[in-house]
């Protein structure tokens, strides 16, 4: 008798979430019949231009900015790098939190190697920057609105108060699918976004550059995007991004509540079934209001992340240990180190992230599969 087919249980939405079918549908004409270059002047070009500008309006509504402040990029990483390289003009230091995504962190390291003064801001056990460490003369501060590994949401207003002259950049790649950016990202002068984290396609993102903020282009050339990002725009990608952004705004409140309830059920169930499991950034008895609705990060002492992930993969459960190097092997997490998690505990890290398509059945299956896998890996 053939074994039961394995039902894939996808719990890696923070790595990439499934595309919204509406976004796919909207993209198809621009991959097939509508091939105009939006920089041209004929009818086909004007059609593409209009589609890009519709998407720009949708992204602007997502962030709460003017459409002219949205600069489309190849993704979140390009947006982060553009912000840091383009706006770190000194003379004060560039200050980045110790838990930034590699797009910010490694760019800051590269700038430091070129002589830019860089300060790393330590974080507390929840992943929030120690405000006393923020240099009052900082030229640029980069702190993610929500952490990609552990999901901590970071208030930005206190940073702005601490260094009133600083330009504030925030990587909102993880936050955009869940949070009220018009309010929470308001203190930031620069905001990085990625389409595929909110149901759009990979390979497209945006940097919001608020009016009056100096940010030199990283990609120079034909002067597209008002000279702030040259290169022919990725029209189909941008169209898909626009649809996903519009849906994120429309569904935000309902989706966040529904997914947070699923996440809470998953967390409660796993913590009960796996006695050794420790929830990262959520002390026992605490609520999870400071964590993204889709994020559940656990440390499983006595296990190796590679082994837990392997066994979960065999069972058709997709998850991650939160950071992967170019070769695909898991590497020690700088985020967990910055949070003060002991090395031997961090070795068994497991990030489960839920998204718009996650169902009650996914949570049921995860609760069935994960505890025995952890027991096997800890043997």
């Amino acid at each position, binding site marked *: 008798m053939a074994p039961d087919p394995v039902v894939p249980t996808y719990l890696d939405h923070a790595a990439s979430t499934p595309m919204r079918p509406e976004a796919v549908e909207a993209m198809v004409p621009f991959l097939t019949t509508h091939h105009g270059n939006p920089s041209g002047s004929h009818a086909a070009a004007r059609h593409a231009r209009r589609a890009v500008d519709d998407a720009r309006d949708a992204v602007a509504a997502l962030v709460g900015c003017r459409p002219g402040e949205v600069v489309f990029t190849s993704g979140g990483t390009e947006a982060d790098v553009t912000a840091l390289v383009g706006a770190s003009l000194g003379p004060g230091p560039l200050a980045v939190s110790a838990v930034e995504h590699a797009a910010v962190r490694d760019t800051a390291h590269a700038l430091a190697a070129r002589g830019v003064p860089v300060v790393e801001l330590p974080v507390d056990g929840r992943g929030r920057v120690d405000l006393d460490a923020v240099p009052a003369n900082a030229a640029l501060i980069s702190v993610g609105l929500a952490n990609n590994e552990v999901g901590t949401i970071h208030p930005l207003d206190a940073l702005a108060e601490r260094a009133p002259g600083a330009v504030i950049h925030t990587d909102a790649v993880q936050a955009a699918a869940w949070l009220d950016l018009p309010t929470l990202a308001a203190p930031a002068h620069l905001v990085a976004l990625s389409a595929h984290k909110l149901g759009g396609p990979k390979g497209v993102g945006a940097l919001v550059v608020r009016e009056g903020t100096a940010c030199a282009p990283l990609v120079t050339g034909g002067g597209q995007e008002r000279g702030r990002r040259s290169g022919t725009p990725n029209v189909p990608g941008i169209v898909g991004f626009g649809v996903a952004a519009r849906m994120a705004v429309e569904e935000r409140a309902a989706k966040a509540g529904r997914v947070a309830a699923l996440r809470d059920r998953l967390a409660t169930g796993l913590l009960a079934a796996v006695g050794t499991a420790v929830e990262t950034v959520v002390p026992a008895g605490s609520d999870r209001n400071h964590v993204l609705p889709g994020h559940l990060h656990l440390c499983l002492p006595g296990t*190796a992340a*590679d*082994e837990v992930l*392997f*066994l979960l*993969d*065999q069972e058709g459960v997709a998850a991650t240990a939160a950071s992967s*190097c*170019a*070769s*695909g*092997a*898991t*590497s020690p997490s700088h985020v967990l180190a910055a949070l003060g998690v002991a090395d031997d505990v961090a070795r068994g890290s497991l990030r489960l992230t839920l998204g718009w398509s996650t169902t009650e059945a996914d949570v049921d299956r995860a609760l069935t599969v994960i505890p025995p896998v952890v027991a*096997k*890996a800890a*043997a």
Partner: protein
Amino acid sequence: MRVLVAMSGGVDSSVAAARLADDGHEVVGATLKLWGGASDTGCCSVADVDDARRVADRLSIDHHTFAYAEEFEAGVVGPYVAAHAAGATPNPCMACNREVKFGALLARADRLGFDAVATGHHARVAVGDDGVRRVARGADAAKDQSYVLAGLDHERLGRVLFPVGSSTKDVVRAEAAARGLRTAAKPDSQDVCFITRTEGRSRFLGRRLALTPGRVVDRAGAPVGTVDAVEAVTIGQRRGLGLPGGTAPRYVLATDPGTATVVVGSEDDLRVPEQPVTAVGWAAGPDDGELAWQASAHGGLRPGRFAADRVRWTARQRRIAPGQALVAYAGDVVVGWATAAR
């Protein structure tokens, strides 16, 4: 069987995986990320991981990448550096096989529900009349890797497969080409994977150790030259000792980083009747008969008998650097192993 194949991205492990899949085993490939960052070159670089993954794709088997950098540092590189600091010259490939491939990986394979770990080593497993499994030489004498696998015991050998050990390298390459595997013409790997040819051993050690400049003296203690790093000098070496030319060749007889001294002498001085050893192990009990001892991966065989804490050579043999492994063969079969002592 469920078999985990350690795929280095080279031709041997590629063919090993292909043969196991052909034989109907449930095969999963794994590349061990032992060393280096995202943009490194040499062993287990991203390019090697890519090759392994693409071969696995071609064979329609799953492929995973396992990070073993910590285990590699703690079990292989750290001890290698520490041994040099103490004037010894270990074989890091043996440590890697013992600690990583047939240590951490084999233990992981157990936990993950695999019946065996396979590698692309050119070696075989021989089962004696006594029922004991022993490492045996591969079919290709020039590529034989039984030396660096010495120390694998009966129990571990029961969970290890060497699918290309029965083939010559030419056959393996031809088979890879016939199967359309992209690694068919890939050059053989270098000796010590974590030391690049361009950097060399001395500079590698110089990054990890405070190297000791030393005096080179003759057997009577008279100074005859100097070296930049006693730790990088090996017994039997005759070049790079700062000796004047025009005399009979002189060889390193002993090194001591503690006193910053290298002792040199004639080739005759290099030959000794016996070699002290430590960490002695046997596949199936001690054997004091005459055995053929090998002191490096592709070194010649030296007839000798084991006695208590030394090997007595049938005829005088060159000194062996402390830390080097001595592997005892009976015919093509590994029967014992030891480490050269001072």
